[in-house]
């Protein structure tokens, strides 16, 4: 064998060895080799979409914040010392912000929290079996800098964005909040955050990238990052200036009337768009842990209550639409209290108005007069209209915690139930259902489902949100008749002293007793006022409701003045000149 052949064989063997080795790396040892050593797979968290008011100002945006972790095996100081250094920064933001003004009780609470946190951190850091341990999430940039100044080896940070509320607690119950789910992912709860969670959260991306030993990307390698898709942003119909003004007036009114709580809803009756929705007391979503959980639900859509007299226009609308009565029909049972199935039905002030017309029945808020209307209307028609007006079902508003209210089953309705329901007792409705129903009267009988979000926008485009339901509930003529009755009620009824003289406002007061354990509490009421203006071309419909006002139990002395005070501001906002 000559030397050339020997050389050929050597080349052949060397090539075979190289090919075999490459095969081994490529196929047999691929997983352990590539993923452990060079291929970096990590999730890229998406930014959550913003929530913006109708002027484009963010009511909710994102703030830079961080997850703090430790690698116990890399720690150089002892866990106790590190825990002592870190704990004061990782407790509730209530104590850690520079602007925090702490009372003595707060300082004591802070001391306890620091001690608990210190123990928690120490336990985590002492476990040397752990390669990586999470110490805190959503800590601010300010806190991150303070921790960095401590120069503790083995402590690191990862981006972990959190929500920021530029207007602080404004519209908190409408917005909802973001918290962790069972697996630690950001999830929206309540209000818009809850309802639109899927749109807001976006899609996480993935980074799959080969790196060289220095950690730099190898471009010819498997460089395949999947970018995170940012969550869609919500553009609301809520007007920030109206919301601000309403909250301010409502806060003062709740205090003035000594009410347990107060709620105001303002909507555009023509398209169901919510312009403002406020409840006092409220909470700060950035520090929600410091507030009672009962405040998280939005009472404007979640609370059910017996509406009382503000329900009378609905019954009257049904009776007028079915031609059961006319505006000038005279009540022949209105001369005194009425006895039905062992119950006495009387007026709120024990004053009676014999032969009053239907317009006067609404003006005087006459319960006995309403039993006359209900008798003419009948149970079947009453229930049919109540359902058409959207009671007993969700309105379809885009807020998570909406409830349906309560209507007893059709077969359970007796005459006494019909009579009491005709003036708003014995049925349970939500504030938003009432706004929707009265909006239909203001909108020529066309019922439109309310909506808070006008538009959903992501990087690719925008989607306009249209109301799902548009139902002609009553005829435009009936709507006009009820409107005139409500205008008359404002001008000549109980609220006439607080109503503005130069605008035509359609409205109705309500004072409902609160049912407790099978009877009504004689001292506790829900005072309310609902209406719209200007009556001939409404720009807004508004509900004001106070629970258990202590200065006066009546809607005409609490809710009505608040309604007109807000309405005066709205006239200026919309540039509505005086009509008279």
């Amino acid at each position, binding site marked *: 064998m000559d030397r050339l052949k020997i050389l050929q064989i050597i080349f052949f063997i060397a090539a075979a060895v190289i090919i075999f080795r490459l095969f081994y790396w490529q196929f047999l040892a691929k997983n352990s080799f590539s993923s452990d050593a060079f291929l970096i797979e990590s999730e890229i968290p998406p930014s959550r979409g913003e929530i913006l008011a109708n002027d484009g*100002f*963010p009511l909710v*945006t994102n703030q830079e914040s961080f997850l703090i972790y430790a690698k116990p095996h890399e720690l150089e100081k002892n866990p106790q010392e590190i825990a002592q250094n870190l704990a004061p920064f990782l407790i509730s933001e209530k104590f850690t912000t520079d602007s925090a003004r702490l009372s003595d009780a707060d300082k004591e609470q802070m001391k306890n929290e620091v001690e608990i946190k210190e123990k928690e951190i120490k336990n985590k850091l002492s476990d040397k079996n752990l390669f990586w341990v999470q110490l805190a999430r959503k800590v601010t940039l300010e806190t991150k800098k303070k921790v960095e100044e401590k120069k503790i080896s083995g402590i690191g940070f990862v981006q972990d964005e959190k929500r920021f509320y530029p207007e*602080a607690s404004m519209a908190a119950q409408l917005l909802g909040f973001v918290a962790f789910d069972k697996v630690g992912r950001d999830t929206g709860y309540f209000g818009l955050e809850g309802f639109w969670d899927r749109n807001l959260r976006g899609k996480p991306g993935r980074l799959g990238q080969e790196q*060289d030993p220095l950690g730099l990307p190898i471009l010819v390698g498997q460089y395949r990052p999947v970018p995170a898709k940012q969550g869609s942003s919500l553009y609301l119909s809520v007007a*920030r200036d109206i919301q*601000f003004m309403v909250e301010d007036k409502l806060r003062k009114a709740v205090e003035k009337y000594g009410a347990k709580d107060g709620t105001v809803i303002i909507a555009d009756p023509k398209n169901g768009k919510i312009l403002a929705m406020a409840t006092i007391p409220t909470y700060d979503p950035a520090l929600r842990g410091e507030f009672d959980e009962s405040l998280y639900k939005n009472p404007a859509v979640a609370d059910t209550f017996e509406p009382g007299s503000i329900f009378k226009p609905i019954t009257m609308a049904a009776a007028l639409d079915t031609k059961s009565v006319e505006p000038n029909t005279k009540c022949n049972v209105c001369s005194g209290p009425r006895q039905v199935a062992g119950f006495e039905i009387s007026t709120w002030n024990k004053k009676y108005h014999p032969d009053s017309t239907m317009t006067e029945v609404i003006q005087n808020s006459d319960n006995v007069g309403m039993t006359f209307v209900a008798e003419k209307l009948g149970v079947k028609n009453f229930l049919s209209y109540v359902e058409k007006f959207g009671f007993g079902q969700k309105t379809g508003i885009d807020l998570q915690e909406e409830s349906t209210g309560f209507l007893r089953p059709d077969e359970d309705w007796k005459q006494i139930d019909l009579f009491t329901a005709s003036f708003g007792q014995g049925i349970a409705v939500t504030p938003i259902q009432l706004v929707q129903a009265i909006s239909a009267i203001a909108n020529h009988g066309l019922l439109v489902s309310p909506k808070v979000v006008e538009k959903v926008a992501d990087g690719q485009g925008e989607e306009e949100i249209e109301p799902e339901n548009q139902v002609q509930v009553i005829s435009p003529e009936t709507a006009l008749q009820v409107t005139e009755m409500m205008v008359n009620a404002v001008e000549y009824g109980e609220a006439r002293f607080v109503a503005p003289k130069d605008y035509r406002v359609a409205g109705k007061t309500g004072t409902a007793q609160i049912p407790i354990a099978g009877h009504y509490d004689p001292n506790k009421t829900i005072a309310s006022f609902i209406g719209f203006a200007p009556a001939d071309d409404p720009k807004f419909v508004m509900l004001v409701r106070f629970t258990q006002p202590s200065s006066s139990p009546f809607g005409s002395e609490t809710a009505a003045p608040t309604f007109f005070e807000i309405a005066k501001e709205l006239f200026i906002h919309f540039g509505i000149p005086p009509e008279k």
Partner: protein
Amino acid sequence: MLPVSDFKNRNKQEKKHTGGVKVKLMVVISAAATLLFFTQLVFANGLATDGQKIAQIEDEIQKLESENTILRVEISKKSSLVSLSKKALEDGFKKPSLVITP
């Protein structure tokens, strides 16, 4: 018929000729391999530099995005109605008593 000695000589010459071709082929292959090796080195060097540049650019993007987020938060904090109304009150602004509607 050729004499035996001529046949042997011819065979040797042919072998000598064929061996020369093989050597030339190997030289060409070796040269090509060397050239490719150095070309790869040049490209790999370029890629390594590009990788470094990309890493730098990504760092820069992240830094700018982070600054944008901070600025956006600062702007919204300062222009919120809550802080504006507070400032207006501190500076002695009052609500207008007369309003002219169009």
